């Protein structure tokens, strides 16, 4: 039994930490002020390091690394900035993975090389203004029609909400789930269709103004008779939702890693501030009332980290789908809720300065909450965990 990552993982962690601290950290505040969205410069830096291609196969320019390696990268980027961490997570988990897993050879050859190299970004649009947790409520529809020159095309109509990496200058394609018919039992037939940026009728509306994740790219999308070739169907017809759920397990583990990075950042900052900041003539870390909160922070970091990397390890060592799913939901639920508490503690340790934008703590505080929402809310994770236990939760 071993609780340590491999030497390669640790060597890579050092590299990513070094990169995050030197190439990203000094620019975050400026990017938040001046760019106010995803800075292409930051994507280029992560791309140069090969982060977008970590788990992709070498055939498409990837490194063929395991999920644990990706988690290490996301954790270390997330320790410095959550927006850039989610950008990487979504680019790989939602952008690249569905294409790499379900794409045909032609689709992979067309899209993966640029995505893997970080020259382009892809999004995945499941959520709609009126269908989030309940993805079965999807209203966006796609109808197969033959155009004037006799080519079969999907005509997509509808809208998506909160889609990451969907409207950036680097975005090349957004895969969307859409109703393509009705199943025998009356439920909607959902399929996944790739809609390239620039397709007439497909519009990424102006980016949302968000509480946090200011450097991540999130847009509402609208589809008004957007036509794409029939061959843009990703995976099997009618399997769109099921496929998406399958790729979500990796994503949940990766989100847990993002949360671990945030909790670790809160711990690191809190310890150094508690040693440095004086009140009543002594460092505030001398006060039990404060020190104990930081002690609890470390407990939360350690527990989150173990759950997260155990889930990644299960996935990497070929554990059963059921085991991986359960571990992924447990890690995502625990690590994200721990991260939200961790930012609350860190803000408390920093006192008034914790509320000021000149320290990273305020940004962490704003960024944390969405971790409990994206890629399955905490409630959804609890539903899944309950069901995994055999409880008949609806």
């Amino acid at each position, binding site marked *: 039994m071993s609780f340590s990552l491999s030497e*390669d993982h640790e*060597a890579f962690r050092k*590299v990513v930490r070094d*990169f995050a601290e030197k190439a990203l950290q000094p620019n975050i505040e400026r990017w938040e002020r001046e760019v106010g969205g995803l800075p292409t410069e930051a994507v280029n830096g992560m791309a*140069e*390091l*090969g982060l977008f291609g970590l788990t992709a196969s070498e055939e498409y320019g990837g*490194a063929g*690394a395991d999920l644990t*390696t990706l988690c290490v990268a996301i954790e270390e980027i997330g320790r410095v900035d959550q927006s850039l961490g989610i950008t990487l997570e979504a680019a790989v988990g939602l952008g690249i993975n569905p294409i790499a897993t379900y794409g045909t050879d032609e689709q992979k050859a067309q899209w993966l090389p640029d995505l893997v190299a970080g020259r382009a970004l892809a999004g995945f649009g499941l959520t709609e203004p009126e269908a989030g947790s309940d993805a079965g409520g999807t209203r966006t529809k796609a109808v197969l029609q033959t155009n004037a020159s006799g080519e079969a095309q999907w005509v997509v109509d509808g809208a998506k909400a909160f889609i990451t990496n969907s409207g950036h200058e680097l975005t090349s394609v957004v895969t969307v789930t859409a109703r393509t018919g009705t199943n025998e039992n009356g439920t909607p037939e959902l399929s996944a269709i790739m809609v390239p940026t620039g397709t007439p009728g497909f519009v990424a509306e102006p980016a949302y103004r968000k509480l946090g994740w200011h450097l991540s790219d999130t847009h509402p999308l609208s589809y008004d008779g957007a036509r794409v070739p029939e061959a843009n169907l990703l995976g099997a017809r009618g399997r769109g939702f099921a496929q998406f759920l399958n790729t979500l397990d990796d994503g949940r583990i990766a989100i847990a890693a993002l949360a671990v990075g945030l909790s670790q950042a809160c711990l690191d900052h809190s310890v150094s501030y508690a040693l440095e900041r004086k009140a009543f003539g002594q460092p505030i870390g001398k006060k039990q009332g404060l020190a104990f909160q930081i002690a609890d922070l470390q407990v939360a970091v350690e527990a989150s980290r173990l759950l997260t990397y155990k889930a990644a390890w299960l996935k990497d060592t070929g554990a059963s789908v059921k085991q991986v799913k359960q571990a992924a939901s447990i890690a995502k639920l625990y690590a994200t809720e721990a991260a939200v508490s961790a930012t609350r503690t860190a803000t408390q340790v920093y006192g008034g300065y914790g509320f000021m934008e000149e320290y990273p703590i305020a940004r962490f505080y704003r960024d944390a909450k969405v971790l409990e929402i994206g890629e399955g809310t905490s409630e959804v994770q609890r539903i899944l965990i309950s069901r995994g236990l055999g409880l008949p939760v609806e």
Partner: protein
Amino acid sequence: MKIVVCVKQVPDTWAEKKLDASKTLDRVSVDNILNEMDEFALEEALQMIAAHSGTVTVLSMGPDSATEAIRKALSMGADGAIHIVDDALKGSCAAVTSLVLAKALERIGDYDLVISGSEASDARTSVVPAMLAERLGIPQVTFVNKVEVDPAAKTLKANRITDDGYQVVEASLPAMISAVEKMNEPRYPSFKGIMAAKKKPVETLSIADLGLEADAVGLSGSWTKVNDSADRPPRSAGTIVEDEGNGGAALVDFLASKKFV
């Protein structure tokens, strides 16, 4: 082109450095890193072979733990490494370091260019590159911030930083150059690079392999010796100048008294 890059493992720039009982630097209790200046040297070499083809070998003298710095250089893209490790080397001064490195380079033989950093961040003598070139009998161009090589004509042209500006220097190959900071932007190793590094050849040599005797190196062979050392005194409180209309003059007097102006 065959390029050899000299790299040194040094204590982390931010670590507090201490001397051990033998008055040599305690390299065990601190985090060690690849000397940052050497990353510029390596990056330059990697760019040269990308442009002109060839191989990059890293050469390092240092204890066992220096394998970490060597591994980093290999994961950045060097093709192979030579690591000189021998207990007898502990405490070697710059003159001895250059002797050992020169022996290793003579053993390599057919190199076209040797690139080093212009300063190691621990001892900071900046003399190893010059001593090394002298021992090898090859042209040296130190403190270089820009260089172009012409492998066919076997020449190089380099900008050499001086106190007043820079000199443009030409030299024939094989030659030795030492790189200054900001010469380029050293790459980060990729995960692929880290994995590939494990399969790259690292040749370990002892001083016997280089035909050197134990008493020619280390503390006994060194030309310099540390007799005594003292901790840096704590910072004094400083002088506070109250500005009563004469603040400017008081500042100038202070600077003049310290011979700053």
